[in-house]
């Protein structure tokens, strides 16, 4: 993955969007990969009885949503970029549970450039995730170190 330089990147730069399926099989895989085996994600019968989110269906993990939001930036620029650069933080908030069967589409733009001197400059990216109804399911700020 190549990424731009700090001097060239402009606020408002838009990343290619990312779409992630929240089919039950995708949620199941995430449950094992993360070791978060909460039945609100994997057990349809329990989810229907407990209604943790006021709905009788399983939902995706919040951390799966956070991963989808972060992936918008890392798929474009790399976890570690070819030209240098790396992700420094992800700060996310969740606004609506992602119901099983949904597809989350995440988009992102560079919001701020942080000038800390050569080798220390970074940008803040604002990421938004929406479900198939267009509702905001969560958003994140991602900090990314860019080469000068």
């Amino acid at each position, binding site marked *: 993955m190549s990424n731009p330089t700090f001097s060239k990147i402009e606020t408002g730069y838009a990343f290619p969007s990312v779409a992630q*399926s929240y089919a039950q099989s995708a949620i199941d895989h995430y449950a094992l990969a993360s070791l978060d085996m909460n039945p609100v994600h994997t057990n349809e019968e329990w989810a229907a009885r*407990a209604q943790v989110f006021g709905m009788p269906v399983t939902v995706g*993990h919040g951390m799966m949503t*956070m991963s*989808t939001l972060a992936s918008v930036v890392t*798929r474009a620029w*790399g976890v570690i970029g070819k030209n240098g650069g790396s992700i*420094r933080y992800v700060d*996310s908030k*969740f606004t609506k549970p992602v119901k099983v069967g949904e597809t989350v589409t995440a988009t992102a733009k560079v919001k701020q450039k942080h000038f800390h001197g050569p080798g220390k400059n970074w940008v803040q990216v604002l990421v938004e995730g929406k479900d198939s109804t267009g509702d905001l399911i969560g958003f994140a700020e991602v900090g990314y170190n860019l080469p000068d």
Partner: protein
Amino acid sequence: MAVPTRLDKFVKTEKQRHFPKDFMTGWEEYETWADATVGQSGPAQRTFVITEEDILDYNKACGETDPLMIDPDYARKNSPTGELLQHPIFVTTIAFYSLGEKGIGTWIRTPGARNPQQRIEIIEPFKYGEVVTTTVTTSQKFVQRGKPYLQMLLDFHNEKGVLKARWWCSLILPETQADVARFANA
């Protein structure tokens, strides 16, 4: 509680083979919102040895397709670290494995919990073979719009004491053990 058998096909790693998959087992021992004390700190129950398969499966579960994240041979030749690059939210796996079933921070496994917000900082990538110790500090406990929030700071150090990542982990929790029981017994 029975765990759906369809999940078996996703068991790929050594840790997944041995990890307790019944989320309800031992919930009576978990720390609750009512019990938690801000400022209390301690180590998680288990350490976590970083392996290629742990990172590979997390990356795949996130839907990644970059060979630097999902092709170990390609990564060995082309990755800047000589290893698979890990998704920045991979610390989730370290936390759920390490926090275990008893002691501080076990509320991460509370039935009925809701996830409002999270912050993860990456200091440097994990390396295969590193033995990660997770230190838990209860950092915030408050009620907002009638909902009980609890936050802990998880610091992830390798065996040399190098800080690798930090996670400010927040959940909205059932307040007391009786409240948790309503979900555990649902």
